[in-house]
């Protein structure tokens, strides 16, 4: 059996990358176009006869050469008398061969190590073998297969140690990504996102009307502005060591997107992709269709009634504890969930032009996405225009420029705990009400319960519309003096403007005073990131066997933003949304700017091609810190040992590598956190109404409720990592890492005793440790010429623990993500970050519930830890099958453990809407436990009391009843079936006009097997900008999608 080095995916990835690199290299070297004889040929693999794409053909003794095209073909000019070609390709044996016309060159597998190349920090390419840390690669094709318009969501289940949580439901909803566990409380735990070497913005800006984590709409994370079709590959740098050179926030990991580039080729290349897809509702709670609206089991309560002015004349009820529907004449049961949701449709078109010659390369693409959601009147539209160019000014000087322009716009629906939210009103709806009866004859809100907006009314009348225009510009000049000295100056700007508008129509309950008088929120948000990097690097051969790779550089990053936000309240003419149509205004604006400067360097020594030692150091200066703490230095040291080269291992071990690293990083606070300020005073009533200035025209100031700190320090992260990489039997590929990372001086908006005059203190406080294990395992089960099957598994666990707290306190709330149900994500010593802290029942020493005289458990007066939302482990299994032109791939996404507070189900049980609450309304229950005198509880309670106050979250129930423990899932995240029919329409693709033709069918979220009783355990109630997880409260539901994609390459 022929040996082959790497499993299928990596070969594909490497081929592309090598092809690109070689192109770049050759372009850099500069080809001489002398008058000469030319020969052509084709390079194939001796293994399977497949063309070798990107193989290097060099004329021996010269620096001239070319690479094979996508069909393995090449043409090369032979100057003078030299006829020997040197043909090489990563993973295959390099051969010298005499040039003949129409030659076919077969390359044998190489048993030597493959020098796979990866993109690392600052866009520097490195041989993977030399790296002392863990990197994971995701092929751009895998991103496309997911058909996720969001390049973050597209990574779900694909990389060990990376947890992606989508908020789903509405098009453009944000995705949260956490690498190796949560590291911070107040600062973002989101990794840096880098596009072609430039740090770009991936923040979630809660704009108009979505300024709370709980209500409002779910805004996009701004990586949504990238077009997955433009992405060649994704590299995930997981450890702090990998990222030390990026400085700030790189401790959260770095996701590096590399754009597709043009390559040297004949004529103009055109790639066209069209896909169309459908989204449907994937999961829903089982609701009852037997009992009518009502409160006492016998009397039907009619829906709210409304006067001609749109105001309610009776309230109706939100309870479904009424009589049997069959017992009340004129009533029937409606399937409101079915009647509300629709089929979402997606259309996505991309066209790319690419080309290249001796002087340079270019690629230009245009993409358009048009998506409508399963929630009526929600949509996402995205148009991207992307140009990448590289130009060779001289043989040593190259310049490149990339431009990305994106227009993203959305119409979104209210989520969560919001009386104008769709799920709250929809799921609570008694089945005797028809959701389609959503407006009065005057066109005003009409619903079963006066305090809620009808979900159909709200989607049509209270839209949140946002539009973002974004430009990412990146230019670089590279001067390659020699192998040992290369200089690059890169400057980039990422700038966007988001305009958002939230309407609340006349008669809607959604306006901030809930009185139906209408409101408009207008928000204009500008943000710009500027980066300048100057990098020197080179390779020095110190001796024959000792090499030094060095980097030295400096960078300046600045961020500027401004937000202008106006609310108009109390409309004059009905449903006109210009500010002039309102009588009361609230306006605010916020400006923010920050600058970071850094210098850095790294030295990478290679000994005998077996040992590598890298040392890095960086010093940053950050404007957001007090002068004394503004400058900080952080080093890292990394080593790797290719023991398969040193030790005499059996021949079936083709690669064995041990690596280890230590790294230190810092992360600094946002601007303006060092001095306590005076602000407009806000006084919140517990249940919503608020008072604030200007008060009847009188302006006011008061101390901000958060105490700021003039002695702030940056957060400090120290991480150790050990790793093992193995390649065996030419089929098995293992990459395992273990790490421990300690984050100290964490910045917290710590709640403090309000009697201090302040509710929060922004300060350095807790320390958190993350320990984890990551394994990526690939196995090529079958590698036949026609049929191939490979399986890739990733598995990871992360243990997070608070190891220190400020001021000897053992509890504090996490940030300001207070949830009104008294349940909060808390920071507790010895516990993972974000444990669920809430009310609970009294128990005796034997752990039995203590039951009160009313037959219900006795509620403790205080709160404690009642759940932990962090999963035990995460996993992903991808299978790839290939038979001739047909390929099949599917990804199973697994999660084990982690608790979720299912507030949705608890509330629906309370209101008598669930099927469970209706199974036997005549039944009585005795809750297991003991009475206060110690005897066994024998007090029977009614079905209603049981579901309202024990299973539900009714009066007297504890938060603990809503906690669902140890949630597991197996999810078929994506399936794709592709058929390459190039040969059907072109007998000889290399000569034909059509170079490539592919049809693929893919589906997402086809099924989920879970022990979760709620709608979907993968959701993020507070939105992805929050560190809060494990809360389910009328979150928007997730979707199942089907896509058909057609691709042509010309």
């Amino acid at each position, binding site marked *: 059996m022929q040996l082959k080095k790497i499993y299928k995916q990596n070969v594909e990835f490497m081929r592309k990358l090598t092809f690109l690199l070689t192109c770049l290299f050759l372009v850099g070297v500069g080809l001489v176009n002398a008058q000469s004889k030319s020969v052509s040929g084709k390079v194939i693999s001796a293994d399977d006869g497949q063309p070798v794409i990107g193989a290097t053909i060099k004329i021996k003794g010269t620096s001239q050469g070319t690479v094979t095209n996508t069909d393995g073909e090449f043409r090369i000019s032979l100057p003078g008398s030299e006829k020997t070609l040197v043909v090489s390709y990563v993973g295959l044996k390099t051969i010298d061969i005499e040039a003949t016309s129409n030659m076919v060159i077969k390359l044998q597998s190489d048993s030597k190590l493959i020098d796979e190349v990866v993109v690392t920090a600052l866009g520097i390419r490195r041989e993977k073998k030399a790296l002392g840390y863990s990197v994971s690669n995701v092929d751009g094709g895998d991103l496309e297969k997911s058909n996720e318009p969001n390049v973050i969501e597209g990574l779900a289940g694909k990389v060990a140690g990376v947890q992606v949580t989508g908020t789903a439901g509405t098009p453009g909803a944000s995705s949260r990504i956490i690498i190796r566990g949560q590291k911070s409380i107040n600062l973002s735990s989101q990794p840096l996102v880098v596009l072609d070497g430039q740090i770009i913005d991936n923040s979630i800006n809660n704009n108009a009307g979505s300024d709370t984590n709980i209500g409002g709409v779910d805004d996009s994370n701004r990586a949504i502005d990238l077009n997955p079709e433009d992405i060649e590959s994704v590299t995930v740098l997981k450890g702090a060591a990998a990222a030390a050179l990026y400085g700030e926030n790189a401790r959260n990991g770095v996701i590096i997107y590399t754009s597709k580039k043009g390559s040297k080729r004949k004529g103009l290349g055109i790639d066209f992709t069209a896909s169309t897809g459908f989204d449907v509702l994937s999961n829903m709670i089982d609701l009852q269709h037997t009992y009518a609206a009502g409160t006492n089991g016998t009397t039907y309560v009619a829906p709210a009634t409304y006067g001609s002015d749109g105001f309610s004349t009776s309230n109706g009820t939100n309870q479904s504890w009424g009589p049997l529907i069959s017992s009340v004449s004129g009533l029937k049961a409606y399937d409101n969930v079915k009647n509300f949701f629709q089929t979402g449709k997606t259309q996505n078109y991309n066209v790319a032009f690419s080309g290249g010659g001796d002087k340079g390369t270019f690629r230009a693409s245009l993409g358009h996405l048009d998506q409508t959601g399963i929630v009526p009147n929600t949509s996402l539209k995205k148009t991207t225009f992307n140009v990448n160019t590289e130009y060779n000014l*001289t043989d040593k000087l190259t310049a490149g420029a990339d431009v990305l322009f994106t227009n993203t716009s959305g119409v979104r629906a209210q989520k969560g705990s919001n009386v104008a939210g769709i799920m709250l009103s929809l799921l609570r709806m008694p089945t005797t009400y028809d959701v389609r009866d959503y407006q009065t004859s005057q066109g005003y809100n009409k619903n079963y319960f006066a305090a809620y907006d009808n979900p159909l009314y709200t989607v049509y009348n209270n839209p949140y519309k946002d539009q973002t225009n974004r430009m990412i510009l990146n230019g670089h000049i590279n001067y390659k003096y020699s192998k040992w000295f290369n200089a690059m100056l890169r400057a980039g700007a990422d700038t966007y403007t988001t305009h958002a508008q939230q309407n609340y129509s006349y008669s809607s309950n959604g306006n901030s005073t809930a009185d139906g008088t209408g409101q408009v929120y207008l928000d204009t948000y500008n943000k710009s990131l500027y980066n300048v990097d100057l990098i020197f690097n080179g390779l020095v051969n110190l001796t024959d066997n000792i090499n030094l790779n060095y980097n030295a550089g400096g960078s300046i990053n600045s961020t500027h933003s401004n937000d202008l936000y106006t609310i108009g309240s109390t409309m004059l003419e009905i449903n006109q949304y210009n500010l002039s149509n309102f009588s009361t205004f609230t306006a605010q604006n916020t400006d923010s700017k920050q600058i970071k400067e850094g210098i850095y360097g790294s030295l990478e020594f290679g000994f005998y091609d077996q040992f590598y030692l890298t040392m890095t150091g960086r010093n940053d200066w950050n404007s957001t810190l007090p002068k004394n703490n503004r400058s900080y230095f952080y080093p890292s040291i990394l080593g790797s040992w290719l023991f398969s080269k040193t030790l005499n291992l059996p021949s079936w071990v083709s690669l064995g590598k041990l690596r280890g690293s230590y790294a230190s990083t810092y992360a600094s606070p946002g601007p303006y956190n060092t001095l306590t300020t005076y602000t407009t005073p806000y006084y919140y009533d517990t249940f919503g*109404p608020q008072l604030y*200035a200007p008060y009847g025209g009188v302006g006011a100031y008061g101390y901000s*409720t958060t105490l700021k700190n003039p002695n702030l320090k940056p957060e400090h992260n120290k991480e150790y990592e050990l790793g093992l990489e193995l390649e065996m039997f030419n089929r098995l590929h293992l990459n395992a890492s273990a790490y421990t990372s300690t984050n100290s001086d964490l910045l917290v908006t710590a709640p403090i005793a309000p009697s201090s005059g302040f509710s929060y203190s922004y300060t350095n406080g807790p320390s958190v440790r993350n320990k984890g294990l990551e394994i990526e395992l690939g196995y090529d089960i079958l590698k036949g010429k026609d049929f191939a099957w490979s399986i890739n598994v990733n598995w990871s666990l992360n243990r997070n623990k608070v190891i220190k707290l400020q001021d000897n306190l053992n509890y504090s709330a996490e940030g300001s993500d207070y949830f009104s149900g008294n349940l909060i994500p808390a920071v507790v010593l010895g516990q993972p970050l974000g444990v669920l802290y809430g009310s609970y029942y009294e128990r005796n020493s034997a752990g039995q519930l203590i039951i009160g005289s009313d037959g219900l458990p006795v509620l403790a007066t205080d709160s404690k830890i009642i759940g932990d939302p962090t999963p035990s482990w995460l996993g992903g299994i991808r299978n790839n099958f290939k038979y001739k032109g047909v390929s099949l791939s599917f990804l199973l996404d697994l999660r084990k453990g982690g608790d979720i507070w299912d507030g949705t189900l608890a509330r629906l049980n309370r209101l008598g809407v669930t099927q469970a609450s209706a199974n036997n309304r005549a039944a009585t229950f005795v809750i297991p436990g003991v009475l206060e005198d110690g005897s066994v509880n024998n007090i029977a309670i009614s079905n209603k009391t049981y579901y309202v106050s024990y299973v539900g979250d009714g009066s007297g129930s504890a938060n603990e009843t809503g906690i669902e423990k140890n949630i597991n899932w197996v999810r078929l995240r994506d399936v794709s079936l592709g058929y390459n029919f190039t040969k059907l329409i072109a007998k000889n693709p290399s000569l034909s006009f059509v170079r490539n033709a592919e049809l693929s069918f893919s589906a997402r979220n086809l099924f989920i097997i879970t022990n979760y009783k709620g709608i979907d355990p993968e959701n993020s109630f507070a939105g992805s900008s929050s560190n809060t997880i494990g809360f389910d409260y009328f979150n928007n539901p997730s979707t199942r999608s089907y896509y058909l994609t057609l691709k042509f390459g010309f």
Partner: protein
Amino acid sequence: MKKIIYTSILAISVLTLGSCQSDLDSYNDNPNNPTKLSTPVTLLSGAEIGTIMNATGNLPRTFSLLTQQTNGNQLQSLDFTNYVMTETDNETDWSNIYQAGLNLNEIITQFGSADPYYDGIAKVLMALNMGYATDIWGDIPFSEAFQGVSTNIAPKYDTQQQVYTQIQAYLDAAIADFALSSSANKVIPGTDDIFYQGDLSKWTKLAYGLKARYAMRLSQRDGSTTAATKVLQYLANALSSSSDNLVATFDGGNNQNLWYAFNNQRTGYMSMGKYFIDMLKSNVDPRLPFFAGKDAAGGYSGAAPEDNGDASTSDVSPFGSYFAGTASTPNIIFSYSEVKFLEAEAQARLGSTADAQSALQAAISASLKEVTGSVDATFAATYSADASIKNIITQKYIALFTTLEPYNDWRRTGYPVLTPNQNSQSKKIPVRLLTPRAERTLNSNATVVSSMYTPVWWNN
């Protein structure tokens, strides 16, 4: 070529680094919010807004449920009616009191000596706010409170007795401040004073009125006679007509009457209470149609705690127009009527029945005028005939609805006699609130009380 490149790279580096040094220094200057204030003017307006929240927001709503003037029919309000109240339910109320207190304290400490009028107003409002806190929670931080900026974030708790002493001292200091000439002030309060527009004679009367309120509160501690004597002494200079009332106004735009706004945002949570409505109905009280809205049947009715939310909320009376009519309906915080009730009780405690009767009649009349706009003299005469403590407090219970006084008086005197919710687990009306979670968990010096049935010091 090389030289050009080297030179330009060098030049760019030097230039950018040079300009960045000054950027590092200036970028963190906050362009959005001030870190210093030049006068106490805006602080006073802000603290008055806070006082309005504390006096008319969640606290009086919560206690009106316990005194059965209103009833909770759904969700959180139903919990309160069932006496299911946790350490987090009133955390915001506590924070609001201390937020207002912080800014009052800033007026006193930063501007007090230069602007004694502001100092005086701040001290009166501080007395009022600390009065709310101590009456509800007993021992509270006062002497060490509001010192977050100077890094004391765990203030010790003063006993309620110490708090009461300090309240009286603050009111005395305020009265002295108001007596100073205006030339002793750098800034004179005006329209920034939302309550009295800088009318210092009204502030002085209010200070005396509050002294009387808090003196009477100690009737069990100081003894009936001592308390009553002090009350009468303070009342001599207190509010002399309803035009002196301390009134919370609402602009009706962004700032809405909190009872009204609550009812909009939490429709169906609360209605009027059966006990209160039945009392008004049996008395044929002219205030009934102002205190309560019409029920589904076109009459007036209230929900009982034992209804457990089953009574459809539209079947009973909603909040009335007097206190929750529109977004800009004002609410009384301290009234001439209360002054007269205090006088009536003091006279009754001193055995002066006739004086007690006439004060009670004046108290009821003032209330009738405030609520209905006119005085039903017959009604006032009828219900002031009985000058017993029981009748005085019961009439006060009606008149001072929407303030915290009915709950305070019920705890102090036991009137009116309320039957606890028989469907509740405890079957006992709470006599205080629990120490808020934020204090229990975050203030190592907190005096933690974990039972709602432990009475406060003056209630012993």
